[in-house]
């Protein structure tokens, strides 16, 4: 069978039979001259033959293997072949399992360079050809089964290496190729119970890729069925993955794939109800992946790829609210823009009083964090500038109150609580939505850093327990490139004063 000279994948029979001078690989998408593919095949087969003969005892020819009696073949397999092949099979199995820990799907117009396979697809396909070349020697049913399973796994692995390359470049038609690779890999692995969850995963991703291809070809309605199937199959797999301990290693990868496929499905659903163009929105959203975040030492979480899935979910929710199929939390206020804020419920305790009057006081406050804070390095190095700094505004009390233990708070954020409490589920209407660029986990991290900062400067502060409740949107105005928000008083975060609307994504 002719093979692609770029990725090593065997061409499909119908492509080989067609009498055209050019042939296109359905796995990597490269078009090449038939004559080059033939030359590559000869080269690969020479290598395989030479490798196989090096594994054989002197004087034995593989071309006559079928004529040699089965006991002799078995002996050759056990003595000469198995020791050599089993180490390589084990190496490929390890590499395949490691690759499966990564997400193998990206949203349209985005790329992902996280997965780094240790082999090239050409070397994996070549190894697959070697295994095939040795199969006449595997007489024992267990040996045959072992070789067949390894052959399927290595071939599926090679196809996934091609998909990883496709994840790295946003080129037209990549979802067709990916879907083709996923379907083939799923079919190969479905033969073995050991790899059943992997087979299910690939099948679900094939559906998701078909959905994306239809969407990009202008058929959002046609894409929905595929995307929804992908979502439900991935969800089912994720929920049951720990029943297969050897493959639960895929959990995080599957989880990220699920959030991305779900985000695309949600987006299509919300666009279809408003008559909007989901492809245009996807294009705008892709900008999120290209944002350069500041490089601050304790903020490595900003460089994790899975954060994009959550950002896409927030977006999807905002779009749903705009279309009327969902809602978003909007606070009362004036303005034709909606700015995202994380609403944090902070419980803390402080010590007041002296001697027998010493006691703890528990206080509940609200903190608001601008949803775009990760793009501002000043917020990351000085967390107080990224939040409504409630501890900077301490209520005025007498020294006597401190001694008597009659202080009720060491913070001043009452107005913020009132503002966040006005947030109600609603629709943005004609107002423009500023896209949040932070995740809940990042908001928690900023709050924790802020509390560490304040505990160091305030010896009275004892325990604190922040809880990031919601993402709320507060109406604001734009003047030039600056944001103007009312209702914060002296607590307006420094970040808002520095915000440049041109650096944000506005829907």
């Amino acid at each position, binding site marked *: 069978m002719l093979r692609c000279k770029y990725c090593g994948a065997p061409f499909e029979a119908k492509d080989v039979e067609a009498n055209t001078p050019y042939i296109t690989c359905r796995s990597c998408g490269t078009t090449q001259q038939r004559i080059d593919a033939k030359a590559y095949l000869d080269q690969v087969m020479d290598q395989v033959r030479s490798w196989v003969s090096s594994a054989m005892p002197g004087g034995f020819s593989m071309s006559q293997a079928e004529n040699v009696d089965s006991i002799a073949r078995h002996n050759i397999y056990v003595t000469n072949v198995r020791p050599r092949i089993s180490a390589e099979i*084990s190496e490929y199995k390890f590499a395949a399992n490691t690759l499966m820990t990564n997400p193998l799907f990206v949203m349209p117009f985005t790329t992902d360079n996280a997965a780094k396979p240790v082999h090239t697809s050409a070397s994996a396909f070549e190894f697959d050809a070697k295994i095939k070349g040795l199969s006449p020697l595997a007489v024992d049913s267990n040996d045959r089964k072992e070789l067949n399973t390894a052959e399927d796994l290595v071939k599926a692995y090679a196809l996934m290496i091609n998909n990883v390359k496709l994840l790295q470049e946003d080129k037209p038609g990549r979802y067709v190729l990916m879907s083709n690779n996923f379907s083939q890999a799923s079919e190969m692995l479905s033969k073995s119970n050991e790899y059943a969850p992997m087979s299910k995963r690939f099948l679900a991703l094939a559906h998701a890729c078909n959905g994306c291809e239809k969407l990009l070809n202008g058929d959002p309605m046609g894409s929905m069925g595929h995307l929804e199937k992908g979502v439900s199959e991935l969800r089912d797999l994720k929920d049951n993955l720990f029943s297969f301990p050897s493959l639960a290693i895929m959990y995080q990868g599957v989880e990220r794939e699920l959030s991305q496929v779900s985000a695309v499905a949600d987006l299509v659903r919300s666009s279809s109800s408003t008559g909007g163009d989901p492809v245009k929105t996807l294009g705008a959203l892709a900008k999120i992946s290209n944002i350069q975040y500041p490089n601050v030492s304790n903020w490595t979480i900003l460089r994790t790829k899975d954060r994009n899935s959550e950002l896409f979910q927030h977006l999807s929710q905002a779009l749903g609210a705009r279309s009327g199929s969902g809602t978003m939390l909007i606070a009362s206020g004036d303005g034709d823009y909606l700015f995202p804020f994380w609403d944090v419920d902070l419980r803390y305790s402080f010590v007041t009083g002296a001697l027998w009057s010493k006691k703890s006081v528990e206080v509940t406050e609200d903190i608001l964090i601008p949803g775009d804070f990760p793009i501002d390095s000043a917020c990351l190095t000085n967390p107080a500038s990224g939040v409504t700094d409630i501890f900077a505004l301490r209520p005025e009390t007498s020294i006597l109150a401190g001694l008597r233990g009659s202080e009720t708070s060491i913070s001043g954020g009452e107005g913020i609580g009132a503002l966040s409490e006005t947030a109600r589920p609603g629709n943005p209407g004609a107002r423009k939505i500023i896209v949040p660029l932070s995740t809940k986990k990042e908001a928690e991290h900023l709050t924790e850093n802020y509390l560490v900062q304040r505990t160091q400067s305030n010896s009275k502060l004892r325990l604190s327990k922040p809880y990031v409740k919601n993402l709320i949107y507060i109406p604001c105005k734009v003047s030039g490139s600056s944001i103007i928000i009312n209702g914060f008083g002296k607590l307006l975060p420094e970040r808002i004063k520095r915000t440049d609307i041109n650096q944000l994504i506005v829907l």
Partner: protein
Amino acid sequence: MALSLFKDADALYEQAIDLIKQGEFEKARGRLMKSIEKDGGPDDISAVLVCMIDMRGRLGDVSAYGNLLNALKATKAKEFTFGLTTVSVPTMILQCELAIEEIHALNMNGSSAVTLEKGNRLLKLAQRYQSEVGNETLKMNEIFLNDTTRTGIREGMVLLAMGYESLASGTVWNDPKKAAEYQQIAYGYRKQVGDTGESNLKLINDYSKTCKCWFCGRTASGLGIHFFPMSSEISPMLLKSGEGEPIKSDSDDHNSIYACRACYRGISIRADEIAKVYYNQAMGEMRAMEARLNAEIAALWSAVRSIR
């Protein structure tokens, strides 16, 4: 706070709650104990709080978890507050039970069979963490270590890594290839939870290595377990004779030859025996020499004395 000498159980309880919020755990424990003495019963929530305070610094102690579990099962309360954290009683009961099982499993050590049993128990426990705790944080870590990143899913991953490492240890004596596969899976989980997995990689490499014993010609897999390198000198002629063999009998740098465990141990034991004979012989000769020298010294002393 009113200064009164005789407080009732409720006042003591309130005082203890306040002290916990101040981070004064020992004082809080004292007040809670007094509260229990005055008015408490076995179902008192104060008993739960005392056990919670006793958990500090003892997150690996089964008896501390056992006490807490008993107190939780006795109380009729649905939830309790420790510091600023409110915890549901059923959630805490589940997490205590899982923690006790986890500590018991991790303390299992012994033969291959025990290690295999340990591995299987850890895998089952991992599944329970995933299905019963899920994305909830582990409350003990949240309260005492201020760590909200440890969820049931993450704990499950850690236990899967440790489970497969135990299975590898229990299997390597009989089937090093299978052990290498278990280590490969463990490596994957280690990477998932952010560990380097370097020790797994080394074991994968060692367990996967196969050699042909230089002495008996048997094939053996598992470096350091079933075969060992022995320093030697391999002449160019001998090197040539091994060329083209699918399995090597010497190290890549050709400074060592490989010996299967049986040959290695046979040679080691025989070498020990020979060394012992030489040692005994040398010691015997030294003792004889010592006796001769002592006799000569004694003779010398008597000669000196006679001269005096």
